[in-house]
């Protein structure tokens, strides 16, 4: 199956070319042809107007131009070809972007008399931006330049010069006359100098199987299929190959497991799944996996981040993209809030010039932006993977799709500003005490006592309490695995800043996942700051008996979902600096044990 997008200016004869392809390959049936003959006659046209086959909506027929993407189907003995016929004139660049987003091949038309014009360049640029691997330049209306080989060569050389600036893997040129059919389906007798194949033959033969990414295994979880004795994660393979026995991790939580089975639609057993198969995966372990999670291999993970650099095409005339604007961003099976941090530049798609003074992107404009998402995305660069590297922006006011985005490889180039004050210059040395454990385990009581004693002793200290922070810093987060990971990450970052400033940061946070805590520890270690993980190890029965806020009761009653210790896991620390149990004493005694950790540190 080949998906192809076509583009050309209004008068290049694109609709005629497609009509010709369909007609000469016998994809047009008798009644469709009769309707076209009828309309051609009505309009007083002498010849059959093949463009009428594709110009579908009344407005287009009346204006004689294509106004929207139309899909056509062509089946040859070799291939099924899906044609996304997109209009070429200036105001409909967005349609070309739409058509090219799923295309394997882009067909660009130029008029042999006019040669490569601004629009041809724009279309080629869009095709390359959208990662279309194969480009065919059809030089049409060869009949009007006396089938001239020189003219064809001239256009070919001109286009090549431009295409060198683009990222196009495969470029082909075909001289045609759509009106008369030369080199469309059959080789032309009028251009004996042309040594290539007909357009249709090229479309049938072009090799596209290796355009997919078969290296980086990616399964964005789309839907969880559950019955009494079956739990499977359904989704469309976005990259790589997955098979039973594969070791996998589920992001963002980072759980690891192994693939138990892979099934196609209807439960058919699949030995190896690859893009674009729609599959259902069962894992060996019972994990908390939800839509929006991503299954991949442990040593080949996507980028995880909230700072997204991307090329964006703006698709609406009703508003413009400006820094500070917020949208819903849809990426794989995730939907998150995103804010435009910066418009880095606007690209003039005719000259490829970058305008860094631009302040907004309007309809059909393309530019590079920096976005910040509310929760991390699991992504690859678009160049590497079209599925995990693409997104759309939806305007919440109108619900319209307003932008198409292609994510760039994240650069490690966020510049650190050097500090004038060294850590040892400060009056006191900071650190982080991280108290983790179940709800009602006594974390906050102990932490409050630790803070009181430190401050009383004249030591700068500050309590970062998980519940309290959810009222402000983390007010936008929920309790999904992803939001919890982000909650922990943010508290970790804040604690690190406090510690860096010379304060003892005391964190009281359930932080149920080991991977999240380990990430915070790693950040501290990398920053040269002491980090002590304190595990408040109160058994769940004890916590539940205390239940000061009535949370356990509500969770048991099913009113709260995903409550740690009831229906969500708590992963015990493997490297805790200190473990506190109820039998070790009262909160004051436990606080004293925590303070002992400070001995020897600053």
């Amino acid at each position: 199956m080949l998906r192809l997008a076509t583009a050309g200016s209004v008068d290049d004869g694109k609709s005629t070319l497609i009509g010709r392809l369909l007609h000469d390959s016998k994809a047009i049936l008798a009644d469709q042809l009769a309707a076209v003959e009828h309309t051609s006659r009505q309009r007083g046209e002498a010849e059959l107007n093949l463009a009428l086959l594709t110009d579908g909506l009344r407005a287009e027929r009346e204006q004689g131009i294509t106004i929207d993407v139309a899909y056509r189907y062509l089946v040859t003995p070799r291939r099924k070809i899906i044609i996304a016929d997109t209009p070429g004139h200036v105001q409909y660049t967005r349609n070309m972007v739409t058509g090219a987003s799923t295309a394997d091949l882009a067909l660009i038309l130029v008029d042999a008399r006019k040669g490569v014009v601004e629009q041809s360049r724009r279309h080629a640029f869009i095709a390359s931006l959208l990662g279309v691997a194969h480009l065919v330049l059809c030089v049409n209306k060869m009949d009007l330049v006396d089938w001239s080989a020189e003219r064809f060569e001239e256009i070919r050389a001109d286009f090549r010069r431009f295409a060198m600036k683009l990222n196009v893997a495969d470029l082909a040129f075909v001289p045609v006359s759509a009106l008369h059919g030369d080199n469309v389906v059959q080789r032309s007798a009028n251009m004996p100098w042309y040594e290539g194949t007909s357009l249709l033959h090229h479309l049938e033969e072009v090799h596209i199987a290796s355009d997919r990414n078969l290296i980086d295994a990616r399964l964005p979880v789309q839907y969880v299929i559950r019955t009494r004795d079956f739990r499977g994660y359904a989704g469309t393979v976005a990259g790589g190959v997955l098979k039973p026995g594969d070791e996998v991790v589920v992001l963002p939580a980072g759980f690891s497991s192994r693939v138990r089975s892979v099934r196609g639609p209807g439960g058919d057993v699949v030995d190896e799944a690859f893009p674009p198969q729609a599959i259902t995966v069962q894992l060996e372990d019972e994990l908390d996996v939800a839509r929006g999670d991503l299954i991949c291999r442990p040593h080949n993970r996507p980028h995880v981040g909230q700072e997204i650099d991307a090329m964006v095409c703006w698709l609406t005339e009703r508003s413009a993209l400006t820094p500070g604007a917020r949208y819903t961003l849809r990426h794989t099976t995730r939907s998150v809030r995103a804010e435009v941090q910066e418009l880095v530049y606007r690209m003039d798609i005719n000259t490829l010039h970058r305008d860094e003074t631009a302040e907004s992107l309007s309809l059909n404009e393309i530019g590079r932006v920096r976005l910040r998402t509310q929760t991390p995305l699991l992504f690859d660069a678009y160049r590497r993977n079209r599925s995990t590297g693409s997104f759309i922006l939806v305007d919440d006011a109108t619900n319209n799709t307003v932008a198409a985005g292609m994510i760039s490889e994240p650069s490690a180039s966020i510049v650190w500003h050097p500090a004038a004050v060294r850590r040892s210059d400060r009056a006191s040395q900071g650190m982080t005490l991280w108290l983790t454990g179940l709800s009602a385990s006594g974390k906050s009581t102990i932490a409050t006592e630790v803070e009181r004693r430190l401050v009383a002793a004249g030591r700068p200290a500050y309590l970062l309490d998980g519940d309290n922070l959810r009222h402000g810093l983390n007010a936008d987060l929920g309790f999904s695995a992803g939001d919890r990971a982000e909650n922990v990450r943010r508290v970790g970052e804040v604690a690190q800043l406090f510690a860096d400033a010379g304060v003892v940061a005391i964190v009281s946070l359930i932080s149920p996942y080991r991977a999240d805590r380990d990430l915070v520890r790693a950040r501290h270690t990398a920053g040269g700051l002491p980090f002590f993980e304190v595990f408040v190890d109160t058994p769940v029965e004890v916590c539940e008996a205390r239940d000061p806020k009535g949370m356990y009761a509500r969770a048991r009653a099913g009113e709260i979902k995903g409550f740690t210790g009831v229906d969500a896991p708590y992963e015990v620390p493997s490297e805790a600096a200190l473990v506190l149990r109820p039998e070790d004493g009262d909160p004051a005694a436990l606080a004293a044990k925590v303070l002992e950790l400070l001995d020897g540190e600053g």
Partner: protein
Amino acid sequence: MTTAYELSPLRMLEAESVHVLREVAATFERPTLLFSGGKDSVVLLHLAAKAFWPAPVPFPVMHVDTGHNFDEVLEFRDRAVARFGVRLVVAAVQDDIDAGRVVEETGPRASRNRLQTVTLLRGIAENGFDAAFGGARRDEEKARAKERVFSFRDEYGQWDPRNQRPELWNLYNGAHRKGEHIRVFPLSNWTELDIWRYIRAEGVELPSLYYAHRRPVFHRDGMLLAHSRFIELLEGEEPFEASVRFRTVGDATCTGCVESTAASADAVLAEVAASRITERGATRADDRISEAGMEDRKKEGYF
């Protein structure tokens, strides 16, 4: 070396449809599948059953009942619903006629086809459906060639072809307000031939009308219509018996059949592959109203 990791076109289409079915089930509150008993809706239900295996199809099906049904289709509908274990919602055109919301056409050319739109929209509104799967394909008709997979309908159920949401990659935008809904067309990229190939490959059961059988028919407007209690004959129209099959199944008053002896999926496939006339051109009086017949009805909210 074999060409590894390649899907046949049929399996690629299946994967794309399954992706769409799952996406809707995951992101909408109350989807439904519009089920007419026609082959496209039967294939759609078959795909839905496969998409959620081993769980049951997680949404009901809705039949817009013109009251002018072929008996075989109603029987088939009830059996299919029972077999897949899905809930059936029926929205009856007769109810709208009785309530005076629509006025029935009269005379020998009377059809309830156009009235269906009112009933369809009422069924969607009354049941609070926010997404409705339809079996429409882009190869059927010129106006449908521009249809999105996720097609937005405003609070009046209407389609605005000049203001459709761009649809990129496989990222579908189903955002809508209360009262609005999305028509979803998972079979958008299938052709009639693909449908028949899939029916053969999967052994999908269809109403018997789709295979050759003998029945009384008559000629009208260059089509072959079934002689039934729903149609008055015009002067000079003489019913005769013939071996026929239907290429589409719609309202009995405007769905024509073709002379055929194809009694199996294999035989039908051979016929379809050799046919020089589209299925709607051969058998649908409703599309012949004008060149823009389908476009106008779609704007009003038709299937």
